[in-house]
């Protein structure tokens, strides 16, 4: 009898911990790996051994409290659903907020960011598919804000709100 109740207790505890883990990761924070080079050198900086890419992807802390009270601003690195495929997530930096004007590259036009939208760009403009391709994205697509790099250990750091060097928004 005692082994059955022991197993039952283990099941209950693991179920509770599983639920707590799910709730925390949905509503407070979670850890995700960063794929790709669109945010170099902030994430996944170029290094010599590109064959170890899978093991040395940066893992970052994504906080979700920002979805309720926080006001997003320039320089925040955010995780959002891709506007072209809602099952994929992308990580980019916000470089324009509603009301800003963004100059379109190689043309004399300027785009005004509509209300409720933002302009996102990768820190590595050469290798990044971002708002320069798919236009401004609604803020409702954002799923979290990146605050820290947690892995690999030598790259543990806080992410700053770095503004782009070439001032594209005015």
């Amino acid at each position, binding site marked *: 009898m005692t082994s059955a109740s022991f197993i039952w207790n283990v099941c209950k505890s693991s179920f*509770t911990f599983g*639920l*707590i883990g*799910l*709730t925390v990761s*949905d*509503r407070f924070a979670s850890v995700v790996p960063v794929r790709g080079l669109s945010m170099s050198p902030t994430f996944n900086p170029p290094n010599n051994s590109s064959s170890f890419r899978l093991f040395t992807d940066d893992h970052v802390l994504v906080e979700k409290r920002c979805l309720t009270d926080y006001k997003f601003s320039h320089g925040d690195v955010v995780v*959002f*659903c*891709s*506007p*072209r*495929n*809602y099952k994929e997530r992308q990580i980019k930096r916000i470089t324009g907020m509603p009301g800003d004007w963004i100059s379109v590259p190689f043309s004399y036009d300027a785009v005004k960011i*509509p*209300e*409720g*939208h933002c302009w996102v760009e990768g820190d590595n403009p050469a290798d990044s598919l971002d708002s320069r391709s798919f236009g401004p*994205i*609604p*803020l*409702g*697509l*954002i799923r979290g804000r990146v605050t820290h790099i947690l892995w690999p250990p030598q790259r543990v750091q806080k992410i700053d709100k770095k503004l782009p060097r070439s001032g594209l928004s005015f």
Partner: protein
Amino acid sequence: MGIQNTVMKMFNKSIAFGLVGITVTDRYAGVCPIRGSSMAPTFNPSLESFADDYVFLEKFCLDRYKFSHGDVVIFSNPTNYKERCVKRIVAMEGDYISNVNGATRVPEGHCWVEGDNSALSSDSRTYGPIPLGLIRGRVTHVIWPPQRMKKVDRRIAQDRLAF
């Protein structure tokens, strides 16, 4: 000691139920009230009724389901991400919608939503097609008031068919 034990047990149980409730509402299904009459007569058919319709919305659709024409969905308002709107999907990616300026093509990953009450609805005719990533759930049933309990059909008005 007996009373303290009982109180602790009730406290633990209510925390557990609270957690289960939060997880289920976030990930699987929920109930919410409908405000406004942009979806009349499907929801809130008359202005004089005191009670808003409450609907059952399911979130399983966010994982595997392929959204299609006629689904009533709840999504974040593209002009104000803290608000939610409920409208019907009239066209999916690749369809063409007839507009005052001719025909608009709905881009990849987006959908065109309209309210059933065209006169009183601010929808894709105002803010354009919305990315599917904004969708937060799919409405399946009206569950309150009791005389209006029914399943919500996937039906579109004849004059708003996409081509």
